[in-house]
């Protein structure tokens, strides 16, 4: 019986990350489309660029941000490494590397999904068809998760898939929350207004969290409640703390079950992150600055990813999109 190649494990990790990333870009584009229906529409689309720190790169190619430009940039623009089509291309390349390991169904679905996306024309992603496009991407990603859950052989590779997926999801939730920060910034007087509430509502819906939120907070909707829910709620699968806990549990199980010695550095970082998040209060976070806090979380997640890369992949995992 052969051990898993380090290179395979790395490819599994990034396969999961890039699928999760494609799904989340679709979610963010989708929620922005909803936001942009208000009077500040033009401004809204530039916030997505700031979110992914793509402002300069975008302007070099497209000039001033427009809805059409930003949508194309993040969906079908193959020259943009943070577009959906690029994320799925990298995911497919990893899947191709992994063909000896993954199930035939996993590969075929990935191949068809990518081919379908590549064949799309620019007007298939523009308003008013954008929501349908985003639904298509999300559905493709969910199909991938379902097939993976049902067919992927459960060895160490499976654990690395979970690690990649949850690290990426945690990162993406911090970015989704950050959209709201960018949107609120220009008009603090809107806080608590009907418009503001509808935007928090849309943000929750973009991460499929509205109904879960309502179970926890049956009435009312404050920025603190929503941000607290997306950051710290233990039972919501897309909350940052839930993802971090899952990463931690997965790493424990992986080390325990397969007697792996690597990963100690990542565990240490995860411990710190967890205890920090357990003690954090959303009021304090908002007071000192949500954006800065989210930035800090993103930095910590990157360090965990790098530590895993050093211990298991043979070198530091470099993310081409970072």
């Amino acid at each position, binding site marked *: 019986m*052969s*051990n*898993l*190649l*380090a*290179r*395979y*494990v790395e490819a599994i990790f990034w396969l999961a990350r890039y699928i999760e990333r494609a799904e989340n870009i679709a979610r963010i584009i989708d929620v922005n489309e909803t936001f942009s229906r208000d009077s500040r529409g033009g401004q809204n689309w530039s916030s997505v660029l700031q979110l992914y720190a793509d402002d300069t790169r975008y302007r070099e190619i497209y000039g001033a941000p427009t809805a059409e430009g930003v949508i194309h940039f993040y969906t079908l623009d193959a020259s943009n490494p943070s577009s959906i089509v690029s994320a799925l291309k990298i995911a497919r*390349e990893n899947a*191709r*590397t992994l*063909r*000896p390991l993954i199930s*035939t169904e996993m*590969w*075929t679905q990935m*191949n*068809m999904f990518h*081919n379908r996306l590549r064949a799309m024309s620019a007007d298939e992603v523009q308003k008013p068809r954008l929501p349908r496009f985003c639904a298509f991407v999300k559905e493709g990603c969910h199909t991938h998760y379902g097939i993976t859950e049902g067919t992927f052989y459960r060895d*160490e590779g499976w654990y690395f898939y979970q690690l990649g997926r949850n690290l990426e999801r945690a990162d993406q939730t911090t970015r989704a929350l950050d959209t709201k920060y960018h949107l609120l910034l220009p008009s603090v007087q809107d806080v608590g207004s009907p418009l503001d509430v509808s935007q928090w509502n849309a943000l929750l819906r973009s991460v499929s969290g509205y109904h879960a939120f309502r179970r926890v907070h049956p009435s009312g909707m404050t920025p603190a409640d929503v941000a607290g829910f997306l950051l710290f709620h233990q039972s919501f699968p897309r909350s940052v703390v839930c993802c971090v806990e899952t990463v931690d549990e997965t790493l424990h199980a992986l080390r325990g079950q397969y007697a*792996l010695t*690597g990963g100690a550095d990542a565990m240490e970082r995860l411990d710190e992150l967890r205890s920090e998040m357990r003690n954090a209060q959303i009021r304090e976070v908002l007071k000192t600055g949500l954006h800065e806090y989210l930035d800090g979380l993103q930095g910590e997640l990157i360090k965990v990813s790098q530590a895993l890369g050093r211990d*298991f992949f*043979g070198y530091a995992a470099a993310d081409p999109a970072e």
Partner: protein
Amino acid sequence: MTAGKQQQSQSAVRASKAPPETPAAAPISRPGLLSSYDPGGSYCELLGLSGEVTEATQTILERINQMDEASLRARARDAELELYNYGITFTVYTEKDSIDRILPFDVIPRVIAPPDWRTLDYGVRQRVTAINAFLWDVYHDGKILKDGVVPRGLVVGNANYRPEMEGMDVPQGTYVQINGTDLIRGHDGAFYVLEDNARTPSGVSYVVENRHLMLRTFPDLMESVPVRPVSDYGQKLREALGETAPDGADDPVVVLLSPGTYNSAYFEHIFLAREMGVPLVEGRDLVVEDDRVYMKTIRGPQRVDMIYRRINDDFLDPEVFNPNSMLGVPGLMRAYWKGNVGLANAVGTGIADDKAVYAYMPRIIQYYLGEDPAIQNVETHICREKEGLQYTLDNLDKLVVKPVGEAGGYGITVGPHASREELDHCREKLLADPANYISQPMIDLSVSPTLVDEGIEPRRVDLRPFAVTGKDTWVLPGGLSRVALRRGSIIVNSSQGGGSKDTWVLE
């Protein structure tokens, strides 16, 4: 096919004058898809010569004949879409993009009758046995060279001769674990060997995948037809690799070494690794320490015993061969010499599938096995020999003249198609350096009914059976049937409009 019949057909080809027996018109009872099918003067794989249609072939013929063309086309499209979605593709690179293309698949199977297969199976095993004996001899005592059966210069002076292999013993005496023999069939119905592939022959993945595809899309055509299965290729190969691993490795760790995802045969590498259940590695996954080979795993280095390498000799080890190779593993040859790792195929097998050595293969078989070849070479005139040169010069307008040192069809003169000047030029080159040339008659390749835009028409086919050798040699029933999809074309290569068919060896 009997030996006598082969003798006969060989002379028919030599004379190039005997008129072919006219194959029978399709022996079908009702009008249908095959009503207007006419193989012309060529041998047809499905109809055979007059009276050779077996009961099983008859059933297949009737079923195809009764199919509705529109639904046949719809199913053919579904089959190709499935290949595309499944990613059974080869990659074509252009300046700005890479395009994944499928090997076109023809849904009408190529059928091989049991007596034909018995000859092919024996003939391929015979040939592989002789090739392995030849390689052992050449890299040890060189008896066949001393006896003057094969010219020493041809072997030792060959670009693919590896002095690094001299005196080295390989387990079981097996140099060529995986061999592909390219066969064609003439208008007389006899098979001929066109070429041996004893380095890293490819195409076996298509054989197995084509069958799976046929089973899914044409179960009604296959129902109750006794077709021999092909799905155990991976298991047979894994066994053979185990048998030829270095001594002392109880449960040898086998890997498949690929140049990587950008190689056009990457799909096949995946296929083989999956079928054998072994890791697919690249050079960067392997490392040599203390003359032992290890792969880099999540638990650190793990010992590797046997490598099925899909990388050419020159790229295997930059310390010994091409120093610029990024695909290989530095130090691999040291481990190989010490017997710490096995390679399949062995290094240096390129001398056995060389064009010039090919011409000597019937004598090589006779020398080691004391038998006549069960499958003849295409008649080949060796111009380094006096009679061969004379015959070639006398019949230049009827022969195909090939330089032995060139690859990719470069420098070939096709006599029947050549101009006066071209023939004169060829004559000059022949006289200046006869040892560099062989000549062969033009062969009228057999045809098989094929679904093309115009309907069902005859298209030329070849056949590459795959032989796997550990302690013994096993031949996968059938092989890869490639088909030239253009009318009249004899070029079956995928890069030039070739496709493939499922190959049915009947019980």
